[in-house]
């Protein structure tokens, strides 16, 4: 199966290079370019026709939101996955309305990013689950990947007790009573580990 071709767009060099290196470690993902502003992003997208554009929205100099519609125009087959530091779920909705296929928080783990890239490359749109905080979404996706609490705690850099707390909140918000129920729910809404993991 050919690799997923990704274009990385972020105007902070350290973060941009970091993302490129991170993605290079992922199986089945190939970085085809890196852009530091809207103009070069649009140019590179038109040239390389990536499967996925990873677009940082939260940078003051890079006006990601306005690059979004133009990206969709010049490379309509490329799916845009937005990266953001902003915590509001409404932000994700706005991004999807502007043409993004989903939003991933920078507070997310690389596993979640990897899952999101594969999901949007496969044509899914990642709608944020209404009423869940970004952290809860993060924990839910790792639970869907079959991770135990200690592993989730390590991946997110938080305490296992905090993970337990989030799972409790998730079960209560989603109306499920067991962890298996959480996993089932997560898979139903499209959160799935990458094939072969």
């Amino acid at each position, binding site marked *: 199966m050919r690799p997923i071709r990704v274009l990385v767009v972020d105007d*902070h060099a350290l973060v941009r290079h*970091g993302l490129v290196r991170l993605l290079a*470690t992922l199986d089945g993902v190939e970085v085809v370019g890196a852009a530091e502003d809207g103009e070069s992003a649009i140019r590179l997208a038109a040239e390389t026709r990536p499967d996925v554009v990873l677009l940082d929205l939260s940078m003051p100099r890079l006006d990601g939101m306005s690059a979004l519609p133009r990206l969709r125009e010049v490379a309509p087959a490329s799916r845009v996955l937005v*990266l953001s*530091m902003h915590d509001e779920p409404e932000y994700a909705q706005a991004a999807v309305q502007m043409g993004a296929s989903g939003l991933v928080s920078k507070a997310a*783990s690389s596993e979640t990013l990897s899952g999101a890239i594969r999901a949007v490359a496969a044509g899914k749109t990642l709608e944020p689950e209404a009423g869940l*905080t970004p952290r809860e979404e993060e924990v839910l996706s790792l639970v869907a990947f079959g991770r135990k609490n200690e592993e989730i705690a390590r*991946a997110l*850099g938080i305490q296992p007790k905090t993970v337990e707390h989030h799972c409790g909140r998730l079960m209560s918000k989603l109306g499920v009573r067991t962890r298996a129920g959480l996993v089932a729910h997560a898979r139903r809404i499209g959160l799935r580990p990458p094939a072969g993991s």
Partner: protein
Amino acid sequence: MRAIRVVLGDDHALVREGIKACLESPRVLVVGEAEDGRELVRRVQVLRPDIALVDVSMPLLNGIEATRQIARISPGTRVVILSMFDDKGTVSSAREAGAWAYVLKDEAPDHLVRTIERVHEGERSFPAGTEGLPSPKLPVDLTPREREVLQLVAEGMRSAEMARVMKRSVCTIRNHRARLMRKLGVRTAVALVEKAEELGVVRLEAVRRSA
């Protein structure tokens, strides 16, 4: 020559992982990481790294306060501040708190690696044109504890949670809050949060919504 041991603090996991990927080399070894300022100080205390790479806007304890605490509890650890902003106030606060270097996330990764190596060899590194600038003084003298409480209030914490985080009694926390409000001349928690932003103690975008 043994590798330079680094502990890394940044509240965004993806950014942290990316920085780690950029740093990992025979010369530099990331021995620990943290996603908030308090956890960072704890990791430094345990691991005694050569370098602490500290994001300036972390939740629970911001980078400047973390730098001060690290200088106290692990004097052999040299702090390199990482930031998206290079406003002179923050840079001079970092210098005054004891940081050895200030690096923008805008800079290429090899600049960061070179800075870490230079600091390890005893050289300081700050953005050009920021030497000798006075750091913005708070209009009133706040104790370190009061500054910690101010940040936690700005992050939306209630006294019970602050007590847990700071390992103090709720009574003590309430006393700190009351003294803070008196010193800053405000009467509500909301006004306190606004003051915190105004004084640069916390940037509102670093404020986490409580999950």
